[in-house]
């Protein structure tokens, strides 16, 4: 795993994409909560400062902040004819990293950040909060972050930047979460059933089978869609997925429904999860889930930026970045028995830990 404070740099393959990309990221592990909360603002400041450095050097490159649960950084992109300019990204970053903005620039950067931030929390925020609690960075949600950034000043950005760039011990891994059912208030005559489950880290051998399991549950004509929409007409909107981070992961499913149908949706969802654990699903559904995952993976690799950002995530997690190109092979080898096995060990649909 990359040591806290040590930046990681990933470049797209020369000539492979119309737009060349390079991502430079620093790990969030071990950083204090204030720095983690301010990380998007720090990354936005880095993006502005690096763009200005590049302009001063005579090359217009596009820079954007990139923040995940494990790192904060920037992605720089260059148009055809300017690709070589990205070799200087590390130099541009080094020149501005510890003090990315002047006091007079702060208001503009913060306004820009807040204007691009969604006006409300995503439902997955509530799931992560319920699973990881309010102490680990994986539990940070939209509302807490926006409140913190709104109260930040220029000195807070500089302090957070220095903290993120400083050598420090890695933070503790999150407590292993249990399956939770999250209750959100009904809005506009629509309610939802929301379930969060334990997951695995980016380097886990179970990752591929777990991806297949969640792909089997979600999507149109997946197990949840068949039961909730096809057989019982309970919902129109469904989502189910898993996410892996450096130190842990989670799974989540969401089903929009009428307020009075929430309990029935929960009951049917539980039935589906138990069927998954028993391996009671057609093999054709497994093949379909695998195929959709492989297609989505191929699609994402056609974009230089998504490759470099993913490479940084792998590097920071201490996982072989070459795994990106082996994804199709690993997913293609997953068996129905492995899917049922990871469902039993990680998803645990039988025993939700209770309503939150």
């Amino acid at each position, binding site marked *: 795993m990359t040591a806290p404070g040590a930046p990681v740099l990933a470049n797209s393959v020369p000539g492979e*994409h119309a737009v060349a990309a390079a991502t430079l990221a620093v790990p969030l592990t071990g950083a204090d909560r204030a720095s983690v909360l301010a990380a998007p603002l720090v990354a936005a400041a880095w993006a502005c400062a690096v763009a200005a450095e590049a302009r001063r050097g005579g090359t217009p490159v596009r820079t954007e902040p990139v923040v995940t649960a494990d790192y904060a950084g920037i992605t720089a992109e260059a148009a055809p004819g300017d690709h070589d300019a990205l070799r200087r990204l590390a130099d541009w970053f080094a020149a501005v990293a510890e003090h990315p903005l002047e006091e007079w620039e702060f208001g503009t950067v913060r306004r820009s950040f807040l204007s691009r931030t969604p006006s409300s929390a995503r439902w997955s925020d509530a799931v992560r909060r319920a699973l990881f609690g309010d102490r680990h960075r994986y539990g940070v949600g939209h509302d807490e972050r926006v409140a913190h950034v709104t109260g930040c000043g220029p000195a807070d950005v500089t302090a957070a930047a220095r903290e993120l760039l400083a050598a420090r011990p890695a933070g503790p891994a999150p407590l292993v979460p249990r399956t939770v059912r999250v209750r959100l208030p009904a809005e506009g005559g629509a309610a939802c059933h929301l379930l969060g489950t334990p997951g695995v880290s980016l380097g886990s051998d179970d990752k591929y089978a777990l991806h297949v399991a969640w792909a089997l549950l979600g999507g*149109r004509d997946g197990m949840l869609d068949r039961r909730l929409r096809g057989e019982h007409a309970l919902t129109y909107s469904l989502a189910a997925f898993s996410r892996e981070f450096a130190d842990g992961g989670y799974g989540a499913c969401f089903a929009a429904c009428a307020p009075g149908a929430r309990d029935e949706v929960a009951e049917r969802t539980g039935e589906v999860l138990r069927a998954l654990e028993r391996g009671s699903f057609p093999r054709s559904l497994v093949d379909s889930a695998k195929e959709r995952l492989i297609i989505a993976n191929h699609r994402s690799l056609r974009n230089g930026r998504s490759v470099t950002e993913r490479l940084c995530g792998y590097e920071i997690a201490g996982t072989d970045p070459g795994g990106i190109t082996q994804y199709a092979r690993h997913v293609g080898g997953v068996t129905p028995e492995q899917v049922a096995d990871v469902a039993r060990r990680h998803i645990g649909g039988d025993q939700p830990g209770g309503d939150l």
Partner: protein
Amino acid sequence: MPVLTTGPRDPTGPRHLTLDNGLHLVGVRRPGSPLAALRLRIDIGSADEAPGEHGLAHVLEHLVVRCSMGGGRVADGALVEAATGRPHTSYDVLVRTGDIATAGDVLGAAFRQLKPDTRDLADELAAIRRERAQRTADVRWRVQEAMFAALCPDTPYAHPVLGDPRTVDALTDEAVHRLHSRWYHPSRATLVIGSDRVDEELAALAERARLWAPGHPRTETRAAAPPPGGHAVVSEAVGAGRRAVAVGFTEPGAPCGTDAGFALARRSVRAARGIDVLRLRLRSHTCTWVMLAATDETAAVRSVAAALRAVRELLLGPDGAALLRTEALIPELRAAEDIQRSVADATDATDAFDASDRIPASRPTTATGVGEVADVIARWRQGFAAALPEGPAT
């Protein structure tokens, strides 16, 4: 025999074929892609619905996927995604190149006789009721639909794609069969494929597609009346003294500027002012609109006009070329690397307003100039500002 009608202006651009059954085939080259994208577009949408049929094009879309396409699954793998709009209904699928033929067969099933059983129909109508509840709960959706009603009064473009719930709920399986026979025919459809070896794939698809809908009666349907050119601003209160506002205009013929100019102008405005300019081609007209929150409609229109003027001045200023490159060109070129996006663009490019002058969609390049983009923004400003009763805002 298929007729080759490759656009004369760009020999490396999309390939066009028209089959004897009237199906229009388009091929888009994507060298090195391990994936292929296919889009079947039927030129039937909610704008083709007569009074008493509102919402039925959308129901047909659901039933075609469920019944004709067997759930829309390609070789136990990829799934067809479908969408109904005002002018068209589209069926999209992304597959690995080895599954192109199977994907074509699944899409071609759209033309099979559609005879849903009572259970299938009831289940899809229930799903559509949930979809309606979800959409109508969204104030932005309501305001946008009200804008279309105001922009296109007394035309088939006025009503929402979701239609009238009473009409939809009263639908019978016999009526589904009749409507499908009337609307779905290869002569009203375009099949676009993007793939690595597009010439070979196009020829193979043409061989299979020639057999689609043999003996299926070719019936004439109404051509939807075009909406009048006009302007509209509509709003709904959202609390705290704010209103959700939609402001739009329609113009006859081609939209403002080329596709490249539109794409770069849209990204420039979004990057500089956070306003997303939307566009929909309504056959012989184009509708352009924005949605925003403001204290009232007049303030909304004025803020849009002021923002567009500011962005135009930025582009024509000393840093304009760099701004265009970093905030518009680079993200647009990145987005264009997506194979489904290129297929969607090629499909839209078949909407030439003059069929004799069909050209591929123009792509932004590093040579696309700020002047072209600034002109698009100036025309938008003029169009939006005219929505105010007192005339152009400044």
